[in-house]
């Protein structure tokens, strides 16, 4: 004879169900609240600076804590240039690694190589910083930078880009380190979308007599374009916001120089270097305003990246 379930037990279950349901719902909403909180508090904190300097804050090159005058242009410029350098080097290398892993590499080597590249992402950024300052920058100063200055000395335009004494630290060094740091992010996404290409398409191309290179260029890359761009944007988002590694090697100079070998600063490095030393309210507010600008830029880049990747996923799902 089946046992009767008491009404009390049923009510207990209903209560637990409702409890868990609303608890999980509240937690999910917390994620949205966190983002909203970040935006509101950044805007709130940067209001004094934005009120004092207006839109000129973004275009002004002056950063003078003594006179309490602040302009964000050098930091924005440094952020964009270092990220640009990182992308110029990081994109081809990452895509190359992804091609190697998906198309060329023997099966037994796939896992170790993927893992090793992903471990690069596991190394904390402060380690890149300390390594960059003590090992990498002196190497550049002694070897690569004198070579670059010498090699481009006669070339028009490029001679300005690679001018000046080899400091070791500066925009160029920061960009190089960033390029190493974005490698794992771009590589792992590019590899994933490459692997989502239907084997039928590739085999058909091979059947027509295409070489591996032709298959990659004419079949794999066009098929995965949105995904690859999404991965690149994700890497870019990382490069723009990276703080510690850059802070060590950027030189923290609030000026815009023609030469990429010169010291500069980025938004994140300025905040990291100066925030605890900011003596006036306006100073603090200016730094928070920098943070707001950084957040807006990275938010747009990352949102675009997610949007592209989402489109790619839907395509693969069909």
């Amino acid at each position, binding site marked *: 004879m089946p046992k009767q379930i008491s009404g009390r037990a049923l009510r207990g279950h209903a209560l637990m169900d409702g409890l868990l349901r609303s608890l999980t719902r509240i937690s999910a909403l*917390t994620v949205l609240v966190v*983002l909203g909180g970040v935006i509101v508090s950044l805007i709130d904190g940067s209001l004094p600076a934005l009120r004092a300097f207006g839109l000129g804050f973004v275009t002004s090159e002056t950063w003078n804590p003594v006179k309490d005058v602040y302009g964000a242009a050098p930091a924005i410029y440094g952020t964009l240039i270092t990220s640009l350098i990182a992308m110029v080097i990081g994109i081809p290398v990452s895509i190359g690694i992804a091609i190697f892993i998906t198309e060329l590499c023997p099966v037994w080597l796939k896992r170790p190589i993927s893992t090793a590249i992903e471990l690069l992402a596991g190394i904390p950024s402060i380690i890149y910083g300390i390594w960059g300052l003590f090992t990498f920058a002196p190497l550049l100063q002694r070897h690569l930078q004198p070579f670059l200055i010498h090699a481009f000395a006669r070339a028009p335009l490029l001679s300005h880009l690679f001018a000046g004494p080899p400091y070791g630290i500066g925009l160029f060094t920061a960009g190089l380190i960033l390029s190493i740091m974005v490698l794992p992010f771009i590589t792992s996404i590019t590899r994933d979308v490459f692997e989502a290409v239907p084997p039928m398409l590739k085999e058909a191309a091979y059947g027509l007599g295409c070489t591996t290179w032709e298959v990659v260029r004419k079949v794999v890359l066009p098929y995965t374009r949105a995904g690859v761009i999404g991965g690149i944007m994700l890497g870019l988002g990382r490069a723009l916001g990276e703080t510690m590694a850059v802070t060590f090697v950027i030189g923290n100079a609030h000026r815009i120089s023609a030469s990429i070998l010169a010291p500069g600063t980025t938004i994140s490095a300025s905040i990291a270097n100066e925030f605890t030393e900011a003596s006036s309210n306006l100073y603090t507010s200016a730094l928070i305003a920098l943070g707001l600008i950084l957040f807006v830029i990275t938010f747009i880049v*990352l949102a675009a990246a997610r949007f592209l990747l989402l489109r790619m996923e839907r395509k693969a799902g069909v």
Partner: protein
Amino acid sequence: MAMLLSMLSAVFGLAWLVAILADLIWRGAAGLSVQLFTQMTPPPGGSTGGILNALFGSFVLTVIGTLIGTPIGILAGTYMAEYGRKTRLTATVRFINDVLLSAPSIVVGLFVYEVLVVRMGHFSAWAGAVALAMLVLPVVVRTTEDMLNLVPDQLREAACSIGAPRWMVIRKVVYRAARAGIITGVLLAVARISGETAPLLFTALNNQFWSANLNQPMANLPVMIFQFALSPYPYWQQLAWTAALLITAAILALNIIARTLSRGRFNER
């Protein structure tokens, strides 16, 4: 030719990993000693001392940050995978969460500074732990949702058909099936925050002395490395390198454990 280039880029990528690790071991191992784990950080110019207070502080901050961030993350992931699978809220949270996942961590530091440090009037370990929790959250949300979605619906249906209420299905069936995956997510989150420096710079700050008071600034490895490495004192720099070695070894170990855990999981399937 082009294929050769792709092979070269793979070698290029791996070379950095080897170069950084080799350098770290080379410079860091020189400072390994017992006093590292028994003494406090030395004053400027000092030539004896360890990093005990920083080790302890980092441990405390990481544990509290994980304890705050993980439950919220797991519950949010549960909502997305169990209750609101197709709702607009889930889609929005997923999108925002993915953006938070790669948002610059220094901005999180600024936020916590505004909300906690300014209100409390001083830097504190609590503020640092909250900042870290905000970095744990998106990682755990993401992996929990992914892992719960991997659990076959037949399991849920089977449990429901023998009369189990929803909360019991989730607790006794779904969570158990996805346990390894969720633990992997938490481990990855711990690995991520234990090396984070930027959000601690103006929340937990740093402390030269032993402190277990969560309302006071607390010593921690990343900020200590930052300050000591940029100092002019050779002994401080040596301590920074050794601390960097310890932190990297711990994080890579965590990463590898997490990876093996999830791999064992997928082979079972």
